[in-house]
C-alpha cells in the first residue's frame, strides 16, 4: 500500500501522521516501556526521520482483519444463530427455514435442525405406520424445546418411549399463543394434504397468558427485513449490533440517559408486584379462556389434549416455590375443558417428584436450575405423561407424508 503524501493533508494522511507521532514518542522510550520499532531501512522513512506509521497502519489493519476472522470462525461455538423465516403454505404462518440449523447457546447448549413445515427437531416423517397415533404439539418456546437437543425434545422422547407408536409433529413456535395455534389447526383441517391425517392435538400450557387473551384474528405479518438480515449477515455481527442497540432483554430498544439522577425506579422497570389472586382477575381470565376454548372447539373436530405444566417447581428469590399460584384458574380451566370434551393432563405432580429427587425439570447448566425453559428431564416428563393418550386416542388411517408436506 503506498503511503500518502503528507504535504496535502487528507484524513488518511492525518491518521498516518498521528500514528507516526505515536510511534516516534514510543521509539524514544526504554526497553521496559511500550516501544515502537523504528526500521531505518524501511521505505517509509522517506516521510521523515523515524516514521514507521505505514508499518503500524498495515499491522493494525491486518490485526483487525485477523482478529475479526478469529472471532467469526469461533463464534458458532458461543453465539446463537439467526435463521430466516419463510411462509409455510400448509400452516399458513412464517416458520424457520426448513433445513436450517438453529444453535442454542444461552441456557442450554444444543443445535436444532429445522424440518419440513418449520418443525424444530423433526427433520423427517417416519415410515407410514397405520397403527401409530399422530399428534400435533402446540405451544410456545417451552413446547418447542428451545435449548434442548433434538433427541431430547418431547417429540423424540415420546417416539422412543412409545416404540414409535406415538408420533408428534411439533408445531410449537417461540412466542406463540392460542391466537396463532387455532387458525393453524383450522388451516391443517382445510388443507387437502393434511385433512384427516392427524389424530389429536396436544397443547402444552405453561403460562396462562397464552390462553387468557382477547381473540385476535388478524393475519400474521412476516418481516422480510429480519429474514434478509438473518440470511445475509453472520450471526456474530447481528448479535453484536443487537447487544448494542437493545437492553438486557434483547428486544427493548436501548435508550441512552444523560440527564442527572436519581432514576425513578418505576420508570426503570424495577418494580414487580405479587401475583394478583383476586376473584376479579380470575373471573376475567376465566371468561377469556372460555371464549378461546369455544373458538377452538368450533374450529377443530379432532380430540384435543391439554398438558398443564406451569412454572413450578421454581427457584425464585432464593426460595423453592412448590405451589401453583394459579390453582384456582386451573380448576376453572378443567371445568371448561370438561364442557367441551377436551382432555387435561396435570403434569405438576411428576415435575414436583422429579425436583424432590434432585432432577430439576427446568433450567440448564449454562443458565440456572429451577428457572427458564424445560430441559431434557422436563421434556421427558411431559413425554411420559403423554403416553397416557394411548388409552384415549385410536389412530385414524390417514398419515402425513413428507413429500406432501413440503409442497
Amino acid at each position, binding site marked *: 500500500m503506498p503511503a500518502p503524501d503528507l504535504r496535502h493533508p487528507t484524513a488518511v494522511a492525518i491518521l498516518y501522521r498521528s500514528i507516526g507521532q505515536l510511534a516516534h514518542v*514510543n521509539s524514544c522510550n526504554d526497553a521496559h516501556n511500550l516501544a515502537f520499532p523504528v526500521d531505518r531501512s524501511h521505505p517509509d522513512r522517506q516521510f521523515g526521520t523515524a516514521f514507521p506509521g505505514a508499518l503500524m497502519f498495515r499491522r493494525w489493519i491486518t*490485526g483487525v482483519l485477523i*482478529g475479526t476472522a478469529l472471532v467469526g470462525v469461533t463464534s458458532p461455538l458461543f453465539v446463537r444463530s439467526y435463521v430466516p423465516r419463510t411462509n409455510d403454505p400448509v400452516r399458513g404462518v412464517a416458520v424457520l427455514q426448513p433445513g436450517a440449523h438453529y444453535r442454542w447457546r444461552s441456557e442450554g447448549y444444543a443445535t436444532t435442525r429445522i424440518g419440513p413445515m418449520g418443525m424444530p427437531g423433526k427433520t423427517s416423517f417416519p415410515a407410514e405406520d397405520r397403527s401409530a397415533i399422530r399428534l400435533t404439539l402446540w405451544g410456545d418456546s417451552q413446547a418447542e424445546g428451545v435449548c434442548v437437543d433434538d433427541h431430547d425434545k418431547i417429540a423424540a422422547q415420546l417416539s422412543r418411549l412409545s416404540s414409535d407408536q406415538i408420533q408428534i409433529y411439533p408445531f410449537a413456535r417461540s412466542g406463540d399463543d392460542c391466537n396463532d395455534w387455532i387458525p393453524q389447526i383450522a388451516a391443517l383441517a382445510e388443507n387437502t394434504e393434511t385433512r384427516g391425517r392427524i389424530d389429536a392435538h396436544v397443547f402444552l400450557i405453561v403460562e396462562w397468558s397464552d390462553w387468557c387473551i382477547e381473540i385476535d384474528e388478524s393475519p400474521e405479518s412476516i418481516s422480510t427485513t429480519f429474514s434478509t438480515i438473518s440470511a445475509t449477515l453472520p450471526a456474530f455481527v447481528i448479535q453484536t449490533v443487537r447487544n448494542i442497540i437493545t437492553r438486557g432483554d434483547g428486544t427493548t430498544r436501548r435508550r441512552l440517559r444523560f440527564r442527572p439522577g436519581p432514576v425513578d425506579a418505576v420508570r426503570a422497570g424495577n418494580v414487580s408486584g405479587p401475583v394478583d389472586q383476586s376473584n376479579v382477575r380470575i373471573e376475567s381470565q376465566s371468561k377469556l379462556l372460555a371464549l378461546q376454548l369455544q373458538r377452538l372447539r368450533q374450529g377443530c373436530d379432532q380430540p384435543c389434549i391439554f398438558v398443564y405444566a406451569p412454572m413450578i417447581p421454581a427457584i425464585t428469590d432464593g426460595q423453592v416455590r412448590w405451589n401453583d399460584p394459579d390453582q384456582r384458574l386451573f380448576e376453572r380451566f378443567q371445568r371448561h375443558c370438561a364442557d367441551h370434551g377436551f382432555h387435561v393432563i396435570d403434569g405438576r405432580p411428576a415435575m414436583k417428584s422429579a425436583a424432590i429427587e434432585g432432577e430439576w425439570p427446568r433450567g440448564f447448566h449454562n443458565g440456572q436450575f429451577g428457572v427458564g425453559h424445560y430441559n431434557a428431564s422436563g421434556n421427558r416428563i411431559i413425554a411420559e405423561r403423554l403416553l397416557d393418550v394411548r388409552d384415549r386416542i385410536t389412530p385414524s388411517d390417514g398419515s402425513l407424508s413428507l413429500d406432501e408436506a413440503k409442497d
Partner: protein
Amino acid sequence: MQFTQIEFLLFLGLILLAVWRCRTRVTRNLILLAASYYFYSYWDYRFCGLLLLSTAVDYFVAERIVRASGRRAKRAWLLVSLCVNLGVLGFFKYFNFFIDSAAALFESWQLHPGTLNIILPVGISFYTFQTLSYTIDVYRGKIRPSNSLLDFALYVAFFPQLVAGPIVRASELLPQLSQRPEWSGRRFYSGFQLALCGLVKKVLLADRLGEVVDVVFAAPQLYGGLTMWLAVIGYAGQIYYDFSGYTDIAIGVAKMLGYRFPKNFRHPYLATSVADFWHRWHMTLSRWLRDYLYIPLGGSRCSSFRTNINLITTMGLGGLWHGAAWTFVLWGLWHGAALVCERELRKRIELRKVVWLGRLSTLLVVLFGWVLFRSASLDQFTTVIGQLLFQSPGIAWYPPLAMTAITIMILEHAAWTTRLRIAMRLRADRWYTPIATTVLVWCLLLYAPRGFTPFVYFQF
C-alpha cells in the same frame, strides 16, 4: 455513571476531546471538575452537596492548620475535619447499623428506635478517606496545603477515582493537577490498553462469575457441596476481577487524560502469606490503614501483645469501612487474627521456605474470609460453611461459563509467574497486539452478559 455504560464511553470521548483542545491548565481543570460533578450527579445530583461540603471543609481546615500558631490549635482544626468527615460518613453509612445493633439494648429500656431511610452516597467511603489523608498530611507537615481551590476540588472529585478508588494521596495527585500534562501518545495508548483490560475483567469475567455466585448465595441450602465450592472460588474471582477491573479502567482513563494513579492490585491470589496478600490487595486502602490508623495506634513499635491488638483493631475497622454489617467486621477481624497468627508463627518457624504451602494456606484463609464478606447474614454464612465442609446433597450445578472464567483466572495467575506476563501487557510493538486487541473488543461487544451489573465496590 458507570465505566461499563455506553454513556460513559461517549462522555469520555467528549472529555478527551475537550481537554486535548484546551490551551491552559485552569480551563482544563475547570472542564475536568465540571465533568467530575456531572459524573457524580448522574447517579444522584442531591449528593453533590456532600462532595462540596467535604471539599470546602478540608480546604479551609488545611489552610487554618498551617496558619495556626500552636500545636493545640492545629489539633483543634484537625479535629474539626475529622468530626465533619467521619460524622457525615457515620451518619450516611453507619446510622442504621448502630441503631439495629443497639436495638436489643433499647428494647430492654422499653424504647423502640426506628431506622431512617438513608441512601448511602456512592463513593463516600473513598472520598472521605482521601480528604482525610490530605488534612492529616497537612497537619503532620508532610505536604503543603493546596493554594488553588480548583485543584483541590478536582483532587477530591476527579471522576476516574471518585466512586471506588484507588485512594489517591494528595501528594500524588495535587502536583500533577497543578501543571498541564503534555500530550503523550505512548501514555494514551497505555491507558487505553489498561482500560480495555479492565473492561474485559469486569464484563467478561467478574459479571459472568457473578451470575453464578448470586444465585448460589441466594439459596445456599439448595446446592451441593461442590457447587458451593465453585461459588466460593467464583466469588473470589468475581470480587477480584470486578474491583481490579474497575481500578484498571480508572488508572487507564486517568492515564489517557495525562495523570498517573498508584497501583491497587498485584495478583493478590499469588500471595505467600496473609501479610503479603494485603500488600497486593487494595493496596491504596492497605497503606491508608497503615499510615493513618495502624501506625498512630503504635504499629509494631510496642509490645508484642499491643502490636497484635493494633493489627486486629486496624483490620476490624478496615472491615467496618467496607460495609455496615457484622459480617464485614468479622471479615476484618478474621484477617486481623490471621495476621496475628502468622506473625506469631513467623517467630518460631521459617515460613518462606515452602512457597506453595504458603500460597495454599493464604488462599484458604482468604476464601474463608470471602464467605464472610459475601454472606448477607451470619445464618447464611453458617449455611455456606456447612455445605462447604460437610458436602450436603443438593443441586449439582456446574455452569460452563463460570468454570471457564475460573480456569482463565488460574491460567492468568499462573502465567503471571512466568515470562508470559510480558506478552500479557500487550505492548504496542508486538505483532499479536492488534489481533489480541481486536479479539478483546469483539468479545466485549459479543459476549458481555445481558443486563447491567454495577461494580461490587460501589456499595462501599
